[in-house]
């Protein structure tokens, strides 16, 4: 139900005319009516959180062109975005033994970095083309529309969160946890809480990523305009904002206290860097990427980060690995809120090694083995929201039924299966809508109806 509802956000506005059969290629067809412009390094999947793939206007779509373009897509982006979605889901279930497999335990950066970067990349690719073809006003309007859709999705998730927390607050009482019950205090003043939530100032635990995206998208049109004209200047401006943020401690305020957990002024650097790569920067970096010196540095840094991170979790290593005091003083705290440069570097090293190890035309990318992750990555907004909901629901089930290891593993696997099934269903919806654009379920005129329902 959730998946279908969220799916509508995308489906509703989807005048998709062409399709590719699932067996041939798991990819949702790229809408490129023409061969990609020369400046673009790699055509990629279009359905990022930051990207209104479905609303891509079908400008004189030609079936053959779409199919040809789909063979050209960089499925690696979909694959890793899909994997990042799974990791975010696993990490959001507290006390989950399965979350030990996720990358945050073995290095400084985590799935959030992967996600923000890939979304910047895809957003630039899709809206960059739109801006060149349809002009600044139309492309900006579409970016802002996408930001609005993400906002609606966030409010929807907040409603689910409120339902869960209200239930728990009414049913749970224990003198041992008098202090922890304090988190329910905000329920007593819904007038303040709900307004603050709608203003994106009150954000419950694990609901910080979508607000970050909304702000990143809202600020993206001028940045994209600059990136298309002077990529280096755009990236430089982004870096300058990052540095100024660190110098002056800029951040957006949160309610009831403090600041945003993901500081948009800092995290924009990763998004813009992704966008810069998506608009041809990746090609310019090619000599650096192919250099063995860079590769060696990246491998060494990843090993260093892995050992340091393990000392946080493994008491044996904490005592047996001597971390020099000067290094500790310099390194800590590794600031996630402001995208610590150690985290940024760690993500870059991971990305570099991934690009070196996995070629764009890797045959496994078209196999059934990787399809589950790829299909999730192709519908990231819907699957992200579903993942957050499933992590709430999974923890709730663990509390109410049983919290044993078998349950933790079961909830984790079931959650991922549901995410894959939902993504497959969304793909299917898009296909049937594409097949019969005049049918009841998906006429262009019906989009407000369906969109309103989401």
């Amino acid at each position, binding site marked *: 139900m959730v998946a279908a509802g969220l799916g509508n956000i995308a489906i509703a506005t989807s005048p998709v005319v062409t399709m590719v059969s699932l067996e041939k290629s798991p990819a949702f067809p790229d809408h490129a009516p023409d061969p990609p412009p020369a400046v673009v390094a790699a055509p990629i999947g279009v359905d990022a959180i930051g990207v209104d793939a479905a609303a891509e206007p079908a400008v004189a779509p030609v079936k053959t062109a779409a199919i040809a373009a789909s063979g050209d897509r960089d499925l690696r982006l979909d694959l890793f975005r899909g994997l990042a979605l799974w990791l975010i889901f696993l990490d*959001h*279930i*507290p*006390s989950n033994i399965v979350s030990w497999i996720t990358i945050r335990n073995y290095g400084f950066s985590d799935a959030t970095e992967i996600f923000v970067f890939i979304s910047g990349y895809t957003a630039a690719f899709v809206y960059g083309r739109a801006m060149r073809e349809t002009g600044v006003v139309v492309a900006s309007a579409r970016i802002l529309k996408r930001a609005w859709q993400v906002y609606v999705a966030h409010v929807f998730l907040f409603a689910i969160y409120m339902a*869960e*927390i209200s239930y*728990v607050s009414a*049913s*749970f*009482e*224990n*003198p*041992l*946890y*008098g*202090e*922890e*019950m*304090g*988190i329910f*205090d905000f329920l007593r003043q819904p007038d303040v809480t709900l307004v603050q939530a709608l203003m994106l100032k009150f954000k*419950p*635990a*694990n609901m910080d990523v979508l607000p970050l995206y909304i702000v990143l998208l809202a600020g993206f049109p001028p940045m994209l305009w600059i990136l298309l004209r002077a990529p280096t200047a755009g990236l430089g401006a982004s870096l300058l904002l990052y540095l100024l943020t660190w110098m002056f401690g800029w951040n957006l305020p*949160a*309610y*009831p*206290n*403090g*600041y945003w*957990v993901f500081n948009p002024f800092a995290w924009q650097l990763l998004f813009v860097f992704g966008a810069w790569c998506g608009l041809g920067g990746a090609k310019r970096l090619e000599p650096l990427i192919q250099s063995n010196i860079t590769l060696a540095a990246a491998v060494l840094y990843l090993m260093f980060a892995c050992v340091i991170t393990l000392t*946080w979790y493994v*008491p044996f290593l904490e005592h047996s690995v001597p971390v020099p005091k000067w290094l*500790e*003083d310099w390194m*800590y*705290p590794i*600031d*996630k*809120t402001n995208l610590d440069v150690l985290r940024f570097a760690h993500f870059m090293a991971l990305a570099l090694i991934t690009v070196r190890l996995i070629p764009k035309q890797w045959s496994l990318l078209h196999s059934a083995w990787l399809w589950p992750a790829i299909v999730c990555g192709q519908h990231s907004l819907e699957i992200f929201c579903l993942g957050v909901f499933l*992590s*709430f629901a999974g*923890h*709730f089930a663990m*509390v109410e039924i*049983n*919290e*044993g*290891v*078998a349950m933790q593993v079961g909830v984790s696997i079931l959650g991922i299966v549901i995410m894959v099934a939902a993504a497959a269903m969304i793909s299917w919806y898009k296909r049937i809508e594409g097949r019969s654009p005049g049918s009841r379920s998906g006429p262009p005129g019906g989009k407000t109806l369906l969109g309103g329902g989401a």
Partner: protein
Amino acid sequence: MRPLAVALLCALIGGGAYAKDTEDCIAAASAAAPEFAMPRVAAAIAKKRLDVAVIGSASSELTGPSGTNIAYPTRLQTALANLLPGVAVKVTTYARPRETAEEMQKKLSRIVAEAKPALVVWQTGTADAIRGVDAEDFRVALDDGIATLQQAGVDIVLMNMQYSPRTEAMLAMGAYADAMHMIALQREIDLFDRFSIMRKWNEAGTFDLYAATRKTDVAEHVHDCLGRLLANAVLEAAKLTNVDKKETR
């Protein structure tokens, strides 16, 4: 693996098999040995008078008429007195509900000047997480507070938050717990890892931390065990001082 299986079984049977014998809780906690010595505590024991100040928020006391008598600071006093015959042990609690680390930090020097303890147990983190205090502000407040205490010449134990499975998905503790862990290492003071201990109890089925109840029996047992574990940790840390002295001589 086996304790988990037992926990599963207990949960299935219906929770009737929870250990009543609180000796089990000490073993099940398998608390890490203290890392850093407590020379002031060792000196105070030698002088036959040990004063301890507990500074914290609501989870350092229990509500109800007998609340303070059954909360862990009082249990700590009892346990220390039992373990240290002939030493006058006094534990004073300065617990204020909903107080953040920054608010506590401001009154640390006054408390130390007033009570002149050999040891300060600083319990914090939960209120900051609930009130959404910026994690960096929390870290700074903690660091300033510890600097104040170290200058005042007292030994310190940092105590982190309780493990609360019901509210775990709603309350993001991670950043605050990490900050406490890091600062304890950097400042070379002991961390009493209440969170891990309670989580182990939950896994081993020592206590049913999921139960919705108005009764205080589980809360009493938990606090009793926490008090005794804390007493053991303090005495072990005090012994570390003696070992160090012997080695250096």
